[in-house]
Structure formats: structure tokens, C-alpha cells
């Protein structure tokens, strides 16, 4: 080792490509944020710095409605899907395989195997019929669809956490005459909570990110942030779009930073 003339961890050119890669990833986003402070209405046509378009966005009722819809939808769908995924994960891990476990596993991962556009078309055929027959056009369809495709995203980290968990703690609790429920509440759940938290975060972001399924299923007045943004992109390309995009970018930075802080604390 002493006379090793080079570092085995060094791969010629890797650093250069990596830096290029980061530059490529960040320059378009930086430019987008830069132009969101543009005073001019036409995107990309710099007319001085201003917060004008952020102000316009905040007073834009359609944008605010879309933001509220997105928030309601992402919260409801991620809470329900995390709850269902936790139950399913508890049932399908840490035991001898039971009859039908393989089938359950495939079903729970099924939404991951189907392209979003196909799922969107499939849902629109059925939901269109239900809307006609029942006359119900509420947010329920979107919530149900989002819950379905968020389940695998919530399920994976929860299951991973469960598989890595030490069974002996629960056995110890049971040996000390803790009831099944008490053991679950005071031993299993606290140990599982980092997995549940990351499952919830992932489901929340996946729901918030969805454009295709929301766009196909929404009834009038049910624009979410991505569908509203897509609509504006087609209708009128103003600097406000860049302001709204930058707000969404800020939101994801906050979510990532938040989840990092949260996981650090737990560990």
C-alpha cells in the first residue's frame, strides 16, 4: 500500500463529467428562476428586476384554487395511501409466506408497471361513465386515483424498514406480558415511523407531481398546480408561469431539505 502511486478511487474524467452533469442540471432551473424576476410580460425578454409576477400569481384566483386543490388532493391521497400501505406492509413482511402473498405483492406494485398515460386513459373511460350515471363530479375520483398510484410508493419504504427491523424487541415486549396492541403501539410503530414518514413524503410528492392522470380525470374547476401550469403554457406564455414554476421549485427544495432534517433526527 505504501508505494501505491495512484488512488484507486480516482476514475480519470469522472470529476469533469460529474461537474458538467451538475451544471447541466442546474443551469436551466437557475435561468427559469432568474426570468421569474423579470419585469416584462413576455417570458425571457428581460426588462429589469421585479417581483411583479410573484405578486400577480398570489392575486391570481385560478392559481390559488389550483394550489388549494393540489394541497387537498396530495394530503388526502398520501394520508390514505400511507395508512393502507402500512397495513399491507405489516401483513406481508416478517413472517412465513402465506397463501396469496405473492399475488398481493404483485397487485400492490402493479401501478408502477403501467405507464401513466395508459392508466389515465383507462380511468377516464370508467370515470366518464360513472360521472354520467351518477352525476357526481367531485374531487373523489381524483383522490381515489391518486391513492391507488401512491400506494406502491408508500409501500416500498415502509416494507424496507419493516424488513430491517429487529424482531427480538417485539418478542421481548410480548415476554413482558405486553398485549399485542400495546406492543404494536409502543414498540413496532415507533421503530417503523421513519419508514412511514418517508413513505408518506414520497406519496405526497408523487401526487403533487402528477399531471397526466389529474389532467384526464379532472372536472371543470378542478385544476391542480401541474394541470393549471400546463393549461397556461398552452394559453398564454407570460413571466407569471416562470414565477409559479419557481414557487414549485422552492417547494420541492423545502420538502427535500425537510425530509433530510427529519431523517437525520430519527437516526
Amino acid at each position, binding site marked *: 500500500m505504501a508505494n501505491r502511486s495512484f488512488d484507486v478511487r480516482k476514475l480519470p474524467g469522472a470529476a469533469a463529467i460529474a461537474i458538467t452533469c451538475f451544471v447541466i442540471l442546474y443551469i436551466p432551473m437557475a435561468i427559469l428562476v432568474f426570468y421569474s424576476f423579470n419585469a416584462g410580460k413576455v417570458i425571457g425578454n428581460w426588462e429589469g428586476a421585479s417581483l411583479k409576477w410573484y405578486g400577480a400569481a398570489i392575486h391570481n384566483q385560478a392559481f390559488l384554487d389550483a394550489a388549494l386543490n393540489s394541497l387537498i388532493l396530495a394530503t388526502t391521497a398520501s394520508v390514505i395511501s400511507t395508512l393502507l*400501505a402500512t397495513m399491507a406492509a405489516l401483513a406481508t413482511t416478517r413472517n412465513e409466506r402465506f397463501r396469496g402473498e405473492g399475488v398481493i405483492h404483485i397487485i400492490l406494485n402493479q401501478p408502477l408497471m403501467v405507464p401513466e398515460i395508459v392508466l389515465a*386513459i383507462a380511468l377516464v373511460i370508467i370515470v366518464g361513465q360513472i360521472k354520467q350515471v351518477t352525476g357526481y363530479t367531485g374531487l373523489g375520483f381524483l383522490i381515489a386515483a391518486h391513492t391507488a398510484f401512491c*400506494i406502491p410508493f408508500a409501500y416500498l419504504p415502509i416494507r424496507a424498514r419493516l424488513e430491517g427491523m429487529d424482531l427480538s424487541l417485539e418478542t421481548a415486549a410480548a415476554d413482558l406480558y405486553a398485549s399485542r396492541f400495546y406492543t404494536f403501539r409502543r414498540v413496532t410503530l415507533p421503530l417503523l415511523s421513519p419508514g412511514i414518514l418517508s413513505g408518506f413524503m414520497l406519496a405526497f410528492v408523487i401526487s403533487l407531481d402528477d399531471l397526466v392522470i389529474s389532467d384526464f380525470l379532472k372536472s371543470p374547476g378542478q385544476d391542480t398546480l401541474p394541470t393549471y401550469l400546463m393549461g397556461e403554457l398552452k394559453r398564454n406564455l407570460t413571466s407569471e408561469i416562470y414565477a409559479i414554476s419557481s414557487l414549485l421549485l422552492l417547494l420541492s427544495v423545502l420538502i427535500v431539505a425537510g425530509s433530510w432534517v427529519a431523517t437525520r433526527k430519527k437516526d
Partner: protein
Amino acid sequence: MNGPDTWRRWALSLPAVAVIMLFSILPLGVVLVYSFLTPGDFGNVKWIFSTDGWFSVLFERNIFDDTIGLSGANLSILFRSIILSVLTTLITLIFGVPTAWFIATRPPTQRNFWLFLITIPFWTNLLVRTIAVQEMIRSEGVFNRILLALGLIKEPIQMMYTDFAVLLGMTYVFLPLMVLPVYAAIEKFDFRLAEASYDLYASRLFCLRRVILPLIKPGVIAGSILVFVPSLGAYVTPRVMGGGKSMMLGNLIDLQFGQGRNWPLGAALSITLTVLVLLALIWYTRLTAGRKERDHG
């Protein structure tokens, strides 16, 4: 196996299973049924059995002499989808693997910072990132402004609504999906193995090819699948970057359910796309399952 416990486990899984059955699997079944029906006059379907939807995926009937020929439009979109997805995977490999290597070989304290930088675009809205790339290459966008200002071009270059634009957009949005699994594999790699191979007079290239690559291959394959599968089914990025000129399968499906008013064809195309994705995933599980067996044997 054990009776009551099996019931309890099924009952616990049932709500999640039911939601997915109702809102994902059942609708897909309906799509399969619709692919064998007759198009309605104003969209939707007539409940008359027909294989025309499937026929039109690859072929078309000449309206004048009733001869059968290959459907040029559909075939070119199918080819474009596959080729652009393969290219996206290759380009993200070229950029992603060295980047993952770079991050994994930083000191642990710096590593988190670089990982953080990769995670942010990963969690950022896909449409927002697509809008960001669009700003770079649209006619009044950054590239054209720079080139015009430098006097290199007189007229803006039309880059939007081309295959290049779709490829650039997909590469940009899917790149983080490649870096993360490859990083996870390199991070686990025991560099003493590389040292041992050098001690045994292996050349750098030999070590890379015979020691490092085989051990990080699972991560590379996982990353490739994570990029290839969403590329093949991509809808948002080709719609924004390619418009009506550079469509992919996802956009063609949308078109058949919209202006095309040929729901059975749209349904057949949807099943085709799903099958292509499933084939890629089956290939992936075969590959990884085979590796596990070898590791244990």
C-alpha cells in the same frame, strides 16, 4: 398455511389491494375489452366485436383499392419511442455513471451535499423541469439569444418540436433516476478489491472491466430500467418539447382518444405500450434473479 393468521394478513392487505384493483387493474381490463370493439361515431365505442383496433396498430387499409399496407405513421412513432428511449438511457448512462462514481468517492461529509444536489431535481415537478429545458432551446430562448448575440447565426435555429428536443428533454428530466441507483451500488463497492487487482498487476482498464463493472452492474441495470421505462411511456415531456411533430407512443394514444376518435385503436396502443414496458421489467427481473442464484451457488 396457518389458517387464522392467513386470514388476518389478507384482511390487513385487503383495503390497499381493493383500491388498486378498482382504480388501476379493473380500468386496464376495460381498456383490453375496448381494444376489441368498434369505434363510435363521436368517440367512445360501439359494442360490436372487431379486431380493427389491433389491426390498425401496425397496418392500414388503402381507402381506394382496399389493399393492406404497413401504417407508416404509427410505425414511425413506435420506432421513435423505442429509439429515443434507448438513446435517453445511453446518454444518462454516459453522464450518470461517472457522476455517481464522483459522489460515491467523495469524503462522507461532502457526499451528502452532492447527493442533496441530485435529489432536488429528482423531487422537482416534471413539468417545471421540462419548462426549464424548453426555455433553453425555444426560438427566443437562451441558446438562440446567445448565438444571435455572438453573431454566429442570423435566424434563430428551430430546435423545439424535433426529435432532438424530445431527447434533450427526456435526458434532462430522467438523469437523476440513473445517478441514484448507480450511486447506491458504487457506495457499497469495496475498494480493497480494486487495490488487490492493482497489486496483482491489473491495468486500470482491466480492473474497471473485470472487477469494478461486474460488481456495480446491478445498480447500472436498475438505473437503466428506471430511465428506460418512464422514457418509453413518456407523455408530458414529448408533448411539451415535441408537440404534434415529434410524438411518442403516449401522445399517439392520447390523440386516438381525442381528435382521432378511434378509442379501440387507442386502447390497442395502450395495451401494446404496457406490454413493451412489462417485457422490459420481466427482462430486468430475469437478469437480477439469475444473478442472485449465481451469488448463492
